[in-house]
């Protein structure tokens, strides 16, 4: 029984994987540059930022929550590092990275605390508010200036360096995803997260401190956002406060949903989310190759999210129908 369940789990990724392949085939025909090795490496370089945001987002989605502040959090953490260079507080890369990570983690912890200890009704409220706070804060700390990190190779290493053309950040993201996969599937904390998403009250009355479980998820999301912020510094060599309102959160949500997560909680996997992140990045990469404006990109990505959810509900309805027919 366990075996058939596992194989059906793998089957459920087949559709997502197929979508990624089809997307690649279409882009290969549409643009002669798509199949180049350098382009593939460029996709792998772009994936980690979105994949990191999506990993934290997935934890929140599994608990039937959401973290709308991930994009702004990443930008803010990058800006915080930029500010320290701009104001010549320090240029020690280790300190810069640690401050950024600590700030992002703290912001995530505040998001979680607002939800669980101060009883804000839905994480939509706390994280949407936080997004705006961080947008403003990003502009304030940098004086609305773009800050360049050129000359600070240590800070940029994570997002910029590669091993034989293979980006370090992608290796890091794979390692993180494996750790998170084990955490979600093989640990008591992982079970608690899924169960809290499925039925918060039953989980609490089973003696699990669901408030702590939720706070953990938002704190983790904050940490991953900060790490994504550090990656973004290396990738672009700059930080810019106006990026805080870029649709990074939407991209992250799209990754999770395409990968099988549900807004109702209790569902979603790391493997699916990684496939989702690859699809979103490949899509964005293709848009750039085909010189499609970012305005149109945003429209298409919005439709992709709606399409993915539509596909998911339709698939579930079809399966239920198939079960009914099979019984006859």
């Amino acid at each position, binding site marked *: *029984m*366990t075996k058939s*369940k596992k194989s059906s789990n793998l089957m459920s990724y087949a559709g997502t994987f197929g979508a990624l392949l089809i997307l690649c085939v279409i882009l290969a025909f549409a643009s002669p540059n798509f199949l180049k090795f350098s382009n593939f490496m460029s996709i792998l370089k772009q994936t980690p930022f979105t994949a990191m945001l999506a990993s934290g987002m997935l934890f929140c989605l599994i608990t039937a929550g959401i973290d709308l502040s991930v994009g702004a959090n990443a930008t803010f953490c990058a800006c915080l590092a930029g500010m320290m260079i701009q104001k010549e507080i320090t240029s020690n890369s280790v300190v810069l990275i640690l401050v950024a990570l600590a700030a992002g983690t703290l912001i995530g912890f505040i998001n979680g605390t607002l939800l669980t200890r101060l009883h804000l009704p839905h994480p939509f409220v706390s994280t949407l508010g936080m997004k705006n706070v961080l947008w403003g804060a990003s502009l304030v700390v940098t004086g609305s200036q773009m800050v360049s990190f050129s000359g600070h190779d240590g800070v940029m290493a994570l997002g910029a360096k590669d091993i034989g053309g293979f980006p370090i950040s992608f290796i890091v993201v794979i390692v993180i995803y494996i750790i998170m996969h084990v955490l979600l599937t*093989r*640990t*008591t*904390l*992982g*079970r*608690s997260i*899924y*169960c809290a998403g*499925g*039925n918060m*009250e*039953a*989980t*609490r*009355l*089973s*003696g*699990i*401190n669901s408030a702590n479980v939720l706070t953990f998820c938002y704190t983790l999301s904050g940490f991953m956002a900060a790490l994504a912020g550090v990656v973004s510094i290396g990738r672009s060599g700059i930080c810019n406060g106006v990026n805080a309102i870029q649709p990074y959160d939407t991209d992250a949500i799209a990754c999770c949903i395409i990968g099988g997560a549900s807004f109702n909680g*209790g*569902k979603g996997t790391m493997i699916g989310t990684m496939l989702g992140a690859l699809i979103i990045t490949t899509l964005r990469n293709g848009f750039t190759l085909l010189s499609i404006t970012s305005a149109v990109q945003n429209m298409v990505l919005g439709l992709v999210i709606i399409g993915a959810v539509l596909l998911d509900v339709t698939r579930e309805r079809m399966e239920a129908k198939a*079960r*009914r027919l*099979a*019984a*006859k």
Partner: protein
Amino acid sequence: MSEYVVELKNAVKRFPGVLALNQMHLAVKPGEILGLIGENGAGKSTLIKVLTGVHQPDEGEIYVNGEKKVFRNPNDSAAAGIACVYQELNIEKLLSITDNIFINKWIKGPGGLLDYNAMHAKAKEVMASLGQDVDPTKAAGTFGMGVQQMIEIAKAVLIDAKMIIMDEPTSSLGEKEVEQLMRTCRDLKSRGIGIVFVSHKLEELFELCDRVTVIRDGQYIDTRDISGWDNDSLITAMVGRSLDNQFPKEFGVKSAQPMLKVSGLMEAGVLNNVSFEAYGGQILGFAGLVGAGRTETMRAIFGADPIDGGSIEIKGQAMQIRSPRQAINAGIAFLTEDRKGQGLVLAESIRNNLILANLKGFANGPFLNTKKIEEEGQKNISSLRIKTPSIDEIVGQLSGGNQQKVVIGKWVNTESDIFIFDEPTRGIDVGAKVEVYNVMNSLVKAGKCVIMVSSEMPEILGMSDRVIVMRGGEVMADVDRDSKHFNQESLMKAAWGGKLDD
């Protein structure tokens, strides 16, 4: 014109892997109350959903006043005059009674706007005809379950229903509310409306019904006039075998020291100075009317709700319990009365629900011990006789009785000493009830302390070694099984606020 207002013939309904209805019959005369009874999983819910157009039968016909009908959806069924008051009410608690009654049948004024004056007047009139003198402008959620149920019945009356199905209407009502409901049923009957009354409580059927239909395993078994049935024949027809003993009470050895001692428990407006002792090797029953504060007492002991005063001793040791986690660490298990809302994660598998209350016990450090989970889970399934195709079955797919067994398994796996069962047999069938009682028996024989909150007096008397009666958040009586007060009359007297002499 047919003899029956609604008649279902030879209905067959298949679900994946299950034949839910097999050649089912049901016939209701106008102006009669037809009892419908069967074990959980017998097909009552499916039968109701076929009649209300929620499910379409694969075979069979439905006749309304002798005319053949096909219900493609619930609207067709409602248009034909069939209404249903489901066990879980469809009430919009924030909206007024009027808004609830007139959902989708609003009365509009000349300008096309809603005519609230007319609707309020009509709502008040309909509710009054059901014996409820209420202000229809108030939010439905501010009233008790009894009134909310009447709102559902009012909806049925308003569409001129020819037949009303009531699915376990008394399961969440207090004694007085049940009486009012019965009066209303008789009144509806006198207006010529046919009523299908689904219940697990035999005495209600004998009091109210003209005829009773028994179904089992999706099949029609028998319909007789009420005078043709008695307790034993009903149970035999329902389970297909006679149950020698509905309450297989077995005795354990009472511990010398109380396992749990509660003193002066206070929760402002809810509990007032609740004190009692519970011993190992015994079942302590908690009797009382709905709202007497029994569940609240248990939630307070378990740390689910904050308390304002009082102390708890476990095995002679004072304990500060402020959260369910602390209660479980102190050796308390709590099976909540609301199985779906508070007991189970319905979207998760049996496997995951069974370990939920003792994740640490099923893990090595932070990692889950999959081997132990598999072994213990299979043991739970066989020892509790959970009927399921697999340990990975989603709990939401199981029947009520099997869901309850999963909850029990979850708590048995905590190896607690004190087991609080809150309404453990509510909404589960007779066969599964006996299995739940057997679990309690084996617990007390292992020296554990069992506390059972129940609103079923026969269950309290059948299974308890001692009974505490509560009323209005206070302990009214503490009756031992050997006492002369260990009978229904005395316990009910205490539950209604009477004093028991020594």
